[in-house]
């Protein structure tokens, strides 16, 4: 039933482990008994109809919500209930479904802002330009340039001083990913990275995710609706509906799973017009 789970090094805990995770808002059960494992350098996609609880999972992992029951473990350590910025510093970074850039700051500043957790200089050190502050600033800048160059000409040098609000939509999404990478994560959470993109850009996203895994060495958890992306980049797919996991495995396996088909298309899919 479960597909190969990616390269497993015996003895090391998975990068991310959700163990019977449950979250309720008052009477509404957003997540129920969710189990999920992500290993190093693995790409796992999370699919499901809207309202299934996918972004809620991200919010729980990153500390925005505290789970009602169950455990969230990052590299073996429980992170449930910890503050979001602490979790971010531990090595989990994310992008947002609705794009949350620092709009009035420049491209470079957006990425540099994310290096805060990796630096230690105190304000007076920055003011007096003491050696540690200068060094950290240099390193942060180098990291930012490195991360931005990952996107080639799209976010090239001449763009660095432009405010984020002046970027095109696709570039904004790229910038958000770049910003997340600047936190040097071990686990990257991408929330609908291909939303609103045309086929060419979608293809770029699929390649991008693959490259992220290879070149940056991160584990990636992707929420996506576009099945081309899911099929193209995932090692494993997890399907959610109404806060419950309904299928897990390789893409073909999950896509044809009766519960998944029903969740997306209802009980009598043959009644719907031919899609593709």
């Amino acid at each position, binding site marked *: 039933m479960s597909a190969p789970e990616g390269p497993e090094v015996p003895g090391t805990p998975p990068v991310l482990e959700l163990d019977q995770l449950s979250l309720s808002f008052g009477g509404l059960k957003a997540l129920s008994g969710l189990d999920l494992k992500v290993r190093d350098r693995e790409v796992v996609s999370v699919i499901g109809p809207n309202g299934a609880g996918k972004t809620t999972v991200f919010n729980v992992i*990153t500390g*925005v919500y505290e789970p009602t029951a169950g455990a969230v473990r990052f590299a073996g350590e429980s992170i449930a209930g910890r*503050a*979001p*910025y602490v979790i*971010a*510093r531990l090595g989990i*970074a*994310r992008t*947002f479904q609705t794009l*949350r*850039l*620092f*709009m*009035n*700051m420049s491209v470079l*500043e957006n990425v*540099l*802002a*994310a*290096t*805060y*957790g*990796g*630096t230690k*200089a105190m*304000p007076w050190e*920055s*003011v007096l*330009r003491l050696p540690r*502050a200068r060094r*950290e*600033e240099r390193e*942060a800048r180098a990291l930012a340039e490195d991360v931005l160059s990952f996107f080639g*000409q*799209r976010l*090239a040098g*001449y*763009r660095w001083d*432009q*405010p984020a*609000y*002046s970027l*095109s939509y*696709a*570039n904004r999404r790229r910038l958000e990913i770049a*910003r*997340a990478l*600047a*936190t040097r994560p071990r686990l990257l959470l991408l929330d609908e990275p291909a939303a609103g993109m045309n086929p060419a850009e979608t293809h770029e996203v699929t390649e991008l995710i693959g490259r992220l895994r290879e070149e940056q060495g991160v584990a990636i958890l992707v929420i996506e609706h576009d099945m081309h992306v899911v099929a193209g980049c995932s090692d494993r797919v997890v399907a959610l509906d109404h806060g419950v996991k309904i299928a897990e495995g390789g893409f073909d396996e999950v896509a044809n799973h009766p519960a998944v088909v029903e969740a997306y298309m209802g009980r009598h899919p043959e009644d719907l017009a031919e899609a593709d």
Partner: protein
Amino acid sequence: MSVDSQGPQVGTDEWVARQGQRREYLPSWLGRAQQAGERIGWWPKLAIACLAGLALPLFGLGGFQLQVGIDALVIALLAVGLNVVVGWAGLLDLGFIAFFGVGAYGFALLSSPQIGSAGIHLPTWLSVPIVMIAAALLGLAVGLPSRRLIGDYLAIVTLFLGEAFVEFTNNVAPSVLGGPNGITTIDPISIFGYQLTTNASYYYLLVIVVVAVMAVLRLLETSRTGRAWRAVREDPLAAAAMTIPVNRVRLSAFACGAMVAALAGAIYAAQQTSVFPTDFDTPILILIYAGLILGGSGSIAGAVTGALVVMVIYDGLLRSSTEAGYLFYGLILLTLLVKLRPWRRLALVLAATVALGFAAHAIAAAISASAVAGGPQSGGWIGDALRYWVVVPANAQTLGNWGFVVLICLLITLVQVSSRWRTILLPPTLCLASFVWETRLVTEPAITRQLMIGAILIVMMNARPQGLLGQRRVETAT
């Protein structure tokens, strides 16, 4: 990169990408000045401003003018401190004036006969840092509720804390704090043994302090701390997801602003040699905000420039009525010059205004002698020039009051109507404005300057929220 045969490619073509950087400049010489200004770096501009500030008294500034300069610089220092809290971190602190008060009263308590039998008379190098640290701690305490309070609530709570400070110093422990009579006989500041006792010396001190604080804040702005402040303002949720400890960063903004305010307070107390609770009441806070808004929230240079402009006008309106007249009529003419284009239209409006004024005056004089019996209240050559142009009756007060109300209505209408109606309505509005000025406003400068402050806030927020030197912000609906 050049435009190739396929045309500019969005996304990869540098020429297209830089489109947003090709700025629109003000027309003619103003634009050329703007461009030149942009080519000079920030630090050279600061150095120039510093030299200009230090050199200003050499042009023969008298005693009163020095006091204006000192007041202006104190407000400028406060504005630049407020900029950290409001402009960068986006925290609407309406109790900021309390930190100013803490600095002033703290310095007063530590440098006067107030406490104990002979009083504590700490040397400056000790008392100033102490009050700054005390203010920083108070800033942290004030900032703590910001964890739970979003925007508006924080504004209310800080407003109350500011009011609480005034109440506190007015009523609590009068033997120590002096009650409504405040604390007098405060020691002057002494630097390396040299005591600052003259206004000139405080002026120079303030210029140096303001420049130094601007420099420190600039260095902070471009550091990780400054970026964190701004990121927290832009999107606290995203900032937290990007490793920034949002609450801690907000607290540091409060503390930083508080320290700058306290520094201003200490210098103020020493220069005035006395402090009273009313020195730290809301009207002063509004002055600081007016300066920050006018100059441009978020910009160090903007904060200082705006504060200086506001204070010069504010104090300028209290001097002789001639000078106030310069300011009033000068501002009107300046606005017309900047806003009325093309030149023909401006000329038309001015001509019509002049004609209308004389006509009205002649008609009024013909009807009744008492209708023009009072003269324009402006002194000097302005009053003389206007004698036959503006209609000023003998007992002008009530009429002037009604004129004021009508003027406000007219101004509001002017903003709403189309361009043609505006041209038609402008001459009567200008005549009425002069009438109201000559009958009421110029005789009550203290009230007029407050009206002006309120007007600055209202007009700026509607017309140019980013102020003179600020950048337009894009807000995402949260």
